[in-house]
């Protein structure tokens, strides 16, 4: 394996609390993300994964606490300056009709272009590299609505890559994709981390993917961090039960050696599903 480039700005959440009205969606959370690491955020639906990523990406302003990008409060930095080092892919972004892949990816250069917002040579080069790396170069003139789900997601990742960020925040980038496309996206993320040293924070709903592709797992439940550490140490039946409310058997992946969990509904829960067959209540 080649030497992984390291460095880049640090990202940290300090005592971050996010409230939507009276409901606390996240926190208090204190997390630091080392440069050039891959962190997967896992947890059940509504646990605050998205909220954590959104506050790290300044898409929501924390009610309490501060997110620091390279030591400076992110909400005090000009949003364009932030965009030059930090890119975010929100969950299921909607695409306007008729926009081609190339046009979309060019938008990724917004934070880098000059005062007249004209793309220059190195902007087009960055766009080109992003299209190549994500494998969407041959669809470049196709409109987004004519792509499959996996191709569309890769095009969106290309947008964030065109930003040439040192930190990428990805909110459930594999949702709605089939297994092959999920793995392609995850392999792409791993390559970006390994080859370019990009710091990755990715929310994933599949713990096995998280364990396989991340250096570090952060497990959230009810807006709080319940576990934080390397997957090999963290992925235990106890943790799975605590976080997801399921019992689990944890095995070793025979090919990679990373832990793999097989979840089961706890005994007694399996039959508590509402039975909607006619006459079932009788």
């Amino acid at each position, binding site marked *: 394996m080649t030497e992984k480039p390291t460095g880049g700005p640090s990202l940290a959440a300090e005592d971050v609390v996010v409230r939507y009205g009276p409901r606390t969606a996240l926190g208090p959370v204190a997390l630091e993300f080392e440069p050039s690491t891959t962190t997967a955020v896992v947890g059940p639906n509504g646990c605050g994964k998205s909220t954590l990523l*959104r506050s790290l*990406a*300044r*898409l929501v302003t924390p009610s309490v606490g501060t997110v620091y990008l390279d030591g400076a409060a992110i909400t005090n930095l000009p*949003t*364009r*300056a*932030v*965009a*030059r080092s930090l*890119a*975010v*892919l*929100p969950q*299921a*972004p*909607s*695409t*306007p*009709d*008729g*926009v*081609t892949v*190339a*046009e*979309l990816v060019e*938008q*990724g250069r*917004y*934070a880098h*272009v000059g005062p*007249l*917002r004209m793309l220059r040579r190195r902007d087009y080069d960055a766009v080109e590299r992003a299209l190549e790396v994500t494998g969407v170069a*041959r*669809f*470049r*003139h*196709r*409109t*987004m*609505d*004519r*792509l*499959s*789900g996996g*191709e*569309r997601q890769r095009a969106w990742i290309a*947008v*964030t890559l065109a*930003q040439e960020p040192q930190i990428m925040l990805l909110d459930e980038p594999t949702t*709605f994709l089939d297994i092959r496309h999920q793995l392609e996206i995850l392999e792409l993320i791993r390559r970006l981390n390994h080859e370019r040293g990009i710091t990755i924070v990715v929310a994933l709903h599949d713990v096995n993917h998280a364990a396989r592709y991340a250096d570090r797992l952060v497990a959230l439940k009810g807006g709080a961090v319940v576990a934080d550490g390397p997957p090999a140490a963290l992925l235990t039946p106890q943790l799975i039960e605590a976080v997801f409310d399921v019992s689990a058997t944890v095995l070793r992946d025979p090919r990679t050696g990373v832990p793999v969990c097989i979840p089961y509904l706890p005994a007694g829960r399996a039959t508590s599903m509402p039975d909607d067959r006619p006459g079932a209540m009788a």
Partner: protein
Amino acid sequence: MTGGPDLTSGGPRSSVPSPGEAGGSAGERPPALVRHFGLVMAGGIAVTGVLVMLSAAVGTTRVSPADVVAALVGHPVSELHRQVVLELRLPRALVAVVAGGCLGLAGALSQAVTRNPLASPDLTGVAAGVVFCTVSWIASGPTLGATPDQLLLQPTVVIVGGVGGAGTGWVVYALSARRRGDPVALVLTGVVVALLLGTATAFVLMLSPTSATLSAYYWFVGSLNARAWAHWAVLWPWAAITVCAALVGSSRANVLQLGDDVATGLGVDPERTRLGLFLISAVMTAGALVVVGAIAFVGLIAPHVARGLVGHDLRRVQPLSFVIGAALLCGGDLAARSVAQRPLPTGVVTAVLGAGFFMFLLLRRPVPGPSA
């Protein structure tokens, strides 16, 4: 290659199966009209130029194209020709070109920043706000010590109209915030607010002195009759400022089209940018409406046609919308002057065209099924 006008661009895309890996051949190229955008623009400008020439030639005094050119280059064949072409018809045609262009471009801009293909000034309440404020302003003319017609020729009226248009548009946008994904929600809110403002306008007119009411009424109908260099003088500075601002802002607007979260991630402050671009669009609309009256639908039609031709990149859509709007209004005026014995108000022609176009857009919109 684009699907042309489409009302569903607000929401997430439904999953369309890929045409197949094999179909994505390496030889794919952008649509011809996108590759030859310069030619499309040149064609639009040429058509507009021909319409301006025709405008200068057609009327009770017929002037041959050659004589029009002669008058334009400063060698009119007669004093009558000089007056008719240079003093009457040329300013009228230029006002039509620039006002129509502004309406088209303002429509493109507001449709982009609201991510709503129906958000033209007529349907978002912006035009109604401009009309209400302008009518109120000129109706209060006597108290301000100026006649309504004088007030209509002062630059202040554009600011008054622009503030009214921007304020109304902003209220409509905020009121429909809960149904952001549905383009029709914004339009329904806009139509309701426009109805209210229409009543308020009528009320103001009722309370005003008769002379002011008449002036306001003539203005209100939307016409290019008797538009002269004085009108041009009101129109061009605002048009120049707002058109430049819109073109400079087109890459920001492009980013904003991707939604607020993505826009923030790419380095655009969505709220501030939207407000700024919205103001530009409102002042642009006000500048045009103050001079030509309540001309409807140019801001709806022009951007749709432009997107149908060259896709959604605003760096292309904006200039092309301007040219199409210019051709529409100039052509509409030409038609209004030539189809009937008595010249029709231009607003009637664009309203008929626009109403048909709007119905076409509504009818081709996919009906959401109960299971969808």
